[in-house]
């Protein structure tokens, strides 16, 4: 099948082109970029005037709950949700049941997701066996089977000796370690940011230092071993200080931030009457922290935006704040939420820089072992994983219509501007689904 995408503003993964361009796709590959020869026989032609054609968005961090917790999400619903959210690639976290700590489970995810309807799904493997933080999991076998990152996410690797060992051991695999930065001794029973929210609510405070101190530890081990380390869902200004310094001294340190920490803060918890949709680990931080994330993003310190999409069954989430599970579901509105906040803040960085955090940024953290898909770039010959963004489209979030099994999100009912309107995986249109087999549109 030959597809022509006409008149698109091209974002190639690094910069946004000033003029409209055509991109043609043959089968699963990007065939040509530039003015199209309309005399040729295309099966489908999409006119993308006013829209931005991007490399497929990559989410480094989401929870798809499969295997073992399929009432919350599964690889199929997660894949569809990802496609609807503009993501062509999802990295699913290994805090499943059982934890994803073996090559067999890596293969399970890859096989099942190969049949899934939307985004590609690439598994993260556990750092430690059974995610217990005691001994190393079979990282070599998992890497060979296709694990793209190692993490005990949901938990930090608290044992510093084990973390150092994991960095040293994994150095020959080309697969990066992702640390969930949390010093557990500072977060026991903690529920919300320590500061205004904990003071007002009486909920146990979760200090910024719980994150920053774990990042300091990881940076120190990175300096010691020389092995790259990635920190996920960085939320606090104190952490950014440590990370900036590490990057300034050229350490191979990377990190991502989440849409919810960019768009929400601890005041939402209070103003929302302690609605549990705002309960998340790490907690929504202060306004100052949130501003600092945007400053870091604008100056180019942030490597990726990752959703940390954490779907729960409504019965596990629709509870009094203190009893509800931690996690925010956002896969289907994450991009729009970030674009809306970016606009409301008066565009603190270029559109190109922002889009890079969904594309070339996360791509640079993953190993390039899977055939050029998810390279985070648009180049002739690469797999046609593409996302079309309509920067002007305004839509109201309706969680009832989500492909995800989650039915609660902080953005439900909110009007957001800037939506992914088409998602293509390997040349196949996976969102919107209706148009897959239609002719001219």
């Amino acid at each position, binding site marked *: 099948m030959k597809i022509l995408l006409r008149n698109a503003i091209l974002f190639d993964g690094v910069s946004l082109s000033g003029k409209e361009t055509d991109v043609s796709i043959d089968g699963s590959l990007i065939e040509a970029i530039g003015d199209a020869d309309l005399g040729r026989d295309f099966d489908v032609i999409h006119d993308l005037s006013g829209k931005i054609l991007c490399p497929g968005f990559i989410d480094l961090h989401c929870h798809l709950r499969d295997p073992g917790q399929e009432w919350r999400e599964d690889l199929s619903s997660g894949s569809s949700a990802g496609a609807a959210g503009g993501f062509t690639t999802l990295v699913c976290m290994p805090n499943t049941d059982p934890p994803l700590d073996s090559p067999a489970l890596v293969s399970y995810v890859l096989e099942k997701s190969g049949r899934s309807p939307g985004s590609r799904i690439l598994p993260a493997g556990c750092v430690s066996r059974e995610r217990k933080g005691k001994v190393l999991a079979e990282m070599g076998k998992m890497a060979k089977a296709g694990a793209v990152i190692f993490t005990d996410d949901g938990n930090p690797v608290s044992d510093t000796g084990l973390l150092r060992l994991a960095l040293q051991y994994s150095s020959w695999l080309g697969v990066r370690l992702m640390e969930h930065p949390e010093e557990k001794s500072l977060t026991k029973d903690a529920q919300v940011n320590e500061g205004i929210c904990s*003071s007002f609510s009486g909920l146990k405070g979760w200090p910024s230092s719980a994150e920053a101190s774990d990042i300091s530890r990881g940076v120190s081990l990175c300096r010691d071993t020389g092995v790259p380390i990635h920190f996920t869902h960085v939320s606090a200004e104190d952490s950014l200080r440590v990370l900036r310094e590490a990057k300034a001294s050229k350490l191979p340190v990377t990190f991502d931030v989440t849409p919810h920490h960019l768009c929400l803060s601890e005041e939402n918890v209070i103003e929302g009457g302690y609605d549990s949709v705002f309960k998340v680990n790490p907690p929504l931080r202060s306004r100052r922290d949130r501003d600092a994330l945007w400053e870091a993003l604008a100056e180019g310190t942030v490597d990726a935006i990752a959703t940390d999409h954490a779907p729960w069954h409504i019965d596990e989430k629709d509870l009094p704040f203190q009893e509800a599970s931690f996690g925010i579901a956002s896969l289907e509105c994450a991009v729009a939420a970030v674009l809306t906040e970016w606009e409301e803040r008066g565009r603190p960085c270029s559109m190109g820089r922002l889009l890079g955090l969904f594309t070339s940024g996360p791509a640079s953290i993953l190993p390039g072992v899977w055939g050029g898909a998810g390279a985070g770039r648009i180049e002739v010959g690469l797999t046609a994983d593409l996302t079309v963004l309509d920067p002007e489209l305004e839509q109201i979030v309706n969680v009832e219509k989500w492909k995800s099994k989650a039915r609660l999100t902080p953005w439900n009912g909110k009007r957001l501007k800037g939506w992914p309107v088409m998602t293509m995986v390997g040349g196949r249109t996976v969102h919107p689904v209706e148009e897959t087999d239609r002719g001219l549109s």
Partner: protein
Amino acid sequence: MEWRHRHVLDLDSWDRSELQHILEQTRSMDELLDRPIKKVPALRGKLVVNLFFEPSTRTRVSFELAEKFLSADVVNWTASGSSTGKGETLRDTAWTLEAMGADAVVVRHGAVGAADYLARKMRKSVVFNGGDGAHAHPTQALLDLYTAWKRLGDLNGRKLAMIGDVLHSRVARSDIIAFSRMGVKVELSGPPTLMPRAPEAMGAIFRKDPHDAVRDADIIYLLRIQRERQEEGMFPSLDEYHQFFGADSRLMESASPDALVMHPGPINRRVEISSEVADGPQSMILGQVRSGVALRMALLFVCLGGVRQ
């Protein structure tokens, strides 16, 4: 006045005129309590459910008396454990109570936000927060406010010193809001490990030395020290607490002899308060108990009386 608060969950959005209105309504009820026959038919035919997930004697009995003096039908519903554990969820409890025709539910729950949550799930019933975790205890704060107002008159420009475990206290949170909104300067003292991170955001000032806090205070408010906090290691020993932060005659020497001493009860003698202070002439502790019944009557009346037939 037009009453705009359907539920009483916390005092965050209450303004001074609303607090004043409740104080005046409470005074009328207080006068009623002096009569030989205390019962009035204000809430006849209304069903009030006291839904208690945590053990409470004072608050529950005080509400129950208030409800009975107003002639409401009263049901005590004692539930145990959290809604995530065994048993039905709080949402199902809410809907069950509503199906039974509850006009009002007084809820005490160990989880912060439980009253807000219940109110969100209720279609018709009015929710009174009888204490949710360490978050809020609005009726306690209002009765404290009334107790002080009854003795001191206008509270604007007065000073309240609050000593103890502010961090874990729903009473402290609601009292700070109530008193500061009436123009009272609130100063906190206690071990720094038992102080909230951002007292100034709550409208209070932290004083390291309790003697500085009580100096010139019109009201000295002592918070109950839960023994668990010591067991958790938040401070070294009860004895050390008493020596540095307990209200005894030494601390009272730094205070004005006219300062009122208040405590939400039940008191731990020789921990946060010595017997000479608890039983002394400045103590308002029993006055608070009586105010509690009057205040809860006033609140039930304002929120339920005449709203629905």
